[in-house]
């Protein structure tokens, strides 16, 4: 396909489904693993000279003067960048409905009355609909890769924390953010991970992990693999049809020679949601302070004192959900409260990681549904309180909080909507996830 054809397809898709905040082609002159591949980029990853807003009006017009490390790597491997995909503002949501003021909400590729999932909703929708060879660069803080991948029926892999450089990622919560690929085929997920993984001296939280050939795991036999099915994820509050779809897939894994047992993660089931949201909100409330109409993004005319000016810009251009998270995060780290909320959450996180680590002594991977529901309709979402909304992440926040790699695998359909299976691995066990992904194709 020529660039013109790609642009016209993306633009017509965008008119109907609103997957991109910015359609813009940047070709690479290099030849490599991604030659001929179109790469869409979640809006929160900076691309030099391409408006990058992290889905927020406060960043209107921000034209980065540098590339994120993952973008540099995509260019070096010959990938063509096609634009910035829609997301919840700064990643603040599970349905891609908390978009920044004035930005569009993407529609589910299977049913336009339903959401794409979030926060990487645009990436998932586009991955499902694109008729050309496409891989999405998406990002997860608490489930933002696997959730939309599940709702849109594509593969999405969130790698181990620190495996992929965050340099150039506009932070939601620095100790939780991970960039990862989304694609229609497992092979493409592995391919993109091979390109973007690796130590980066520009990101202090980047891990010096030996380079792996992720593609070599795709198609590898899983016999003898020990799989734990997370008991709590298939019980109360989970759509029975989703549970039965997952059970069918578990039977497939057993038939391929894996041993499957039920495991329980009681601490994660009870406390991961609260610990995750507290840490995420505390961190994000500091990350968002820089947006004040001085150096980039939305500006107003310079009037009043700095307090009045900053408050004016911030109150005008952050959406309601951003304000809620800033307020909760600011509160939870204020003197008098920080020990009970912020510090406590960091300690609880240790306990939750220990629970996973202990489980991985006996199992290679863990399995659960990705989401307890199929993609909700916009009117259903409208009925939810913010807390209801947060509770949707119950299955995904655990591996995110623990920095564990996890992947959504399309597992079937319920009421004609995609159902996702989530496979979670120990730190740096991305290969095993890809093995399972291919087996269940």
């Amino acid at each position, binding site marked *: 396909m020529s660039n013109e054809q790609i642009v016209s397809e993306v633009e017509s898709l965008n008119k109907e489904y609103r997957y991109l905040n910015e359609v813009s082609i940047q070709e690479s002159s290099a030849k490599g693993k991604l030659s001929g591949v179109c790469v869409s980029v979640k809006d929160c990853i900076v691309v030099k000279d391409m408006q990058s807003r992290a889905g927020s009006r406060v960043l209107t017009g921000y034209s980065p003067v540098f590339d994120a490390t993952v973008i540099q790597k995509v260019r070096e491997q010959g990938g063509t960048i096609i634009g910035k995909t829609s997301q919840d503002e700064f990643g603040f949501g599970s349905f891609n409905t908390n978009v920044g003021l004035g930005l569009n909400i993407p529609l589910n590729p299977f049913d336009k009355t339903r959401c794409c999932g979030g926060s990487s909703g645009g990436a998932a929708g586009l991955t499902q609909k694109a008729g050309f060879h496409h891989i999405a660069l998406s990002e997860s803080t608490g489930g933002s890769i696997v959730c939309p991948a599940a709702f849109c029926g594509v593969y999405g892999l969130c790698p181990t924390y620190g495996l992929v450089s965050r340099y150039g990622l506009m932070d939601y919560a620095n100790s939780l953010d991970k960039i990862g690929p989304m694609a229609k085929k497992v092979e493409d997920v592995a391919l993109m991970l091979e390109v973007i993984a690796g130590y980066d001296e520009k990101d202090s939280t980047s891990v010096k992990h030996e380079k792996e050939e992720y593609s070599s795991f795709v198609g590898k036999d899983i016999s003898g693999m020990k799989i734990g099915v997370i008991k709590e994820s298939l019980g109360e509050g989970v759509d029975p049809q989703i549970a039965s779809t997952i059970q069918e897939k578990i039977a497939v894994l057993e038939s391929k020679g894996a041993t499957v047992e039920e495991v329980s993660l009681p601490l994660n089931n*009870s406390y991961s949601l*609260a*610990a995750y949201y507290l840490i995420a909100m505390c961190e994000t409330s500091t990350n968002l302070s820089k947006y004040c109409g001085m150096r980039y993004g939305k500006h107003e005319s310079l009037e009043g004192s700095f307090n009045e000016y900053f408050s*004016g810009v911030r109150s005008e251009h952050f959406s309601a959900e951003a304000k809620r998270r800033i*307020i909760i995060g600011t509160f*939870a780290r204020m003197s008098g409260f920080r020990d009970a909320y912020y510090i406590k959450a960091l*300690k*609880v996180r240790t306990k939750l990681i220990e629970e996973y680590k202990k489980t991985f002594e006996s199992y290679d991977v863990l399995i659960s549904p990705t989401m307890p529901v199929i993609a909700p309709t916009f009117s259903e979402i409208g009925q939810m309180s913010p807390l209801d909304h*947060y509770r949707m992440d119950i299955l995904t926040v655990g591996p995110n909080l623990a920095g564990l790699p996890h992947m959504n695998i399309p597992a079937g359909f319920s009421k004609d909507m995609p159902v996702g299976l989530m496979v979670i691995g120990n730190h740096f066990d991305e290969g095993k996830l890809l093995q399972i992904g291919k087996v269940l194709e």
Partner: protein
Amino acid sequence: MQITPEIVKKVASVARLKLTEKEVKEFTPQLSEILDAFSKIDEVDTKSTKMSIQPVELRNALREDIPGECLSVEDALKNTEHKKDHYFKGPKVIE
């Protein structure tokens, strides 16, 4: 804990957010409910537990003290609408 409209307004002002009365009214019960739910972590015994600042064990990322390249002044100022004589222009610092 009981979140009052006053607390919401106070915290918002620390974060340089000026809320409308409508927002205060909407946020107050929401934040109360959320913080109540989050208080659940109180139940976990963490007396002898260390904090996990990051989820994986990370130590010692240090840079040698060797100067690197800077941005051009044009690039440094490219994204601001408020500039003058190579300076950023900001709001006045006295109330």
